[in-house]
């Protein structure tokens, strides 16, 4: 993706990274039923890179543990993300990156919704509608140029 000549948000607020998830004895015990929790979902997406900055979604507070909801009975995962500025043109791409990463990582039984946090973006309804349309998402993921940009966000350490 082209580097924008002028960044939309030149001075994003930076936040610290949280510590790693503590591993308990039960995590290693195969006889204990181990449900997915919000922190595990967060760990799947916290490293995704912002398309505009060499910073992670965690560092920019675009995603936070408190914005994630998981229901292991209904098999539903909902992720709220908060663009750094309300006119961020990258919001759809960020949402798509989160959705793709979760589609690739979570078991297929989960119904994943990725939505803009309420009142955090001017085009909130449009972005949410596009991200919820699996036909549009499927077609977008067959676009080689777009999938490369998404992979760059999801796996910055692999694609450089």
């Amino acid at each position: 993706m082209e580097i924008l000549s002028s960044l939309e948000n030149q001075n994003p607020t930076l936040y610290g990274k949280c510590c790693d998830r503590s591993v308990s004895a039960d995590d290693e015990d195969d006889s204990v039923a181990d449900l997915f929790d919000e922190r595990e979902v967060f760990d799947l997406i916290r490293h995704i890179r912002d398309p505009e900055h060499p910073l992670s979604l965690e560092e920019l507070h675009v995603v936070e543990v408190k914005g994630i909801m998981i229901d292991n009975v209904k098999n539903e995962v909902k992720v709220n993300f908060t663009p750094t500025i309300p006119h961020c043109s990258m919001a759809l791409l960020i949402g798509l990156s989160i959705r793709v990463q979760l589609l690739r990582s979570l078991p297929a039984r989960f119904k994943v919704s990725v939505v803009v946090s309420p009142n955090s973006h001017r085009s909130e309804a449009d972005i949410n509608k596009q991200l919820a349309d699996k036909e549009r998402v499927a077609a977008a993921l067959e676009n080689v140029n777009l999938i490369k940009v998404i992979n760059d966000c999801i796996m910055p350490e692999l694609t450089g």
Partner: protein
Amino acid sequence: MELLQTLKGHVGRVWHVSWNPEGNVLASCGEDKTIRLWWQESNDPFALGLKTILTDGHQRTIRSVGWSPCGQYLASASFDSTVAIWNKKSGQFECDVSLEGHENEVKSVAWSKSGQYLATCSRDKSVWIWETSDEEEYECAAVLNAHSQDVKKVVWHPHMDVVASASYDNTLKIFQCDVTECEWICASTLRSHESTVWSLDFDALGKRLVSCSDDQTVKVWQQYEPNNEFGIATPDNEAVWKCVCTIAGYHTRTIHDISWCHQTDLIATGCADDGIRIFKEADNSNINEPTFQQVVNYSSAHSQDVNTVLWNPVHRGILASCSDDGEIKIWKVKENIL
């Protein structure tokens, strides 16, 4: 509802299935860019076997397939922006025509009952009408840019050269050939859904439409002709379509597809909550305010989203479905519901 058969073979999501006019061959397509033809193998109409795999027709996902009324041709619509026509003339299905014109993903393709026209629709917001003269040549008869967003599905009227479309712009539209101008026009826009309309279907007479949406509702629409007995106004002496029933509270996610059985009048839905539901009009239903009852609620019909449901055109109570889980299922509805 009883599961008769599970057809496995596709790799990845199965987007669509289509029965041939005789109801003994089911065509399916999906993410793996193949079309599979499942044939009736014996006298048992519901022991289908995979007999043909059509490949090399498309470069990307095949979103939908549709049979010509004569059963000799199969059309396929793809995200690669083309529509392929497969011809059975030689005994084998061969792709001998590719229709180009849409700017991006073609989402639906359907043949008119007369066999004279083919309708296609795309993310490029347009509906195209193709006219076929001797069924070998396809000429673009109209490019209809009436929708303001992606067009998800097109379906033809059961008897007339009238096509209805469903769109991401939350509306349905009706297109027909204006006799005096000899030109295809948008005759009606049907507004009531609050989000993307994914699919729609006519009833057996073509006087009613049913639609399903991302707003998790099903809506039934009634056509009122000029000078109708109910006193419904028809401006400019044109027929009007009115939403006469909203079926809400049953579906918990996007409803991806809907099929209105022309033999039994049952309405089946396929939902992103993995369920298949069947609705039946109540016995004492009023035509202007009909009521529908849920008669089947099969909550885990598939292990992932249901993408298509389709009644068999010949055999009563037989329903085909397909899903993101890669499977196609054939169902039989219990006699007491029919």
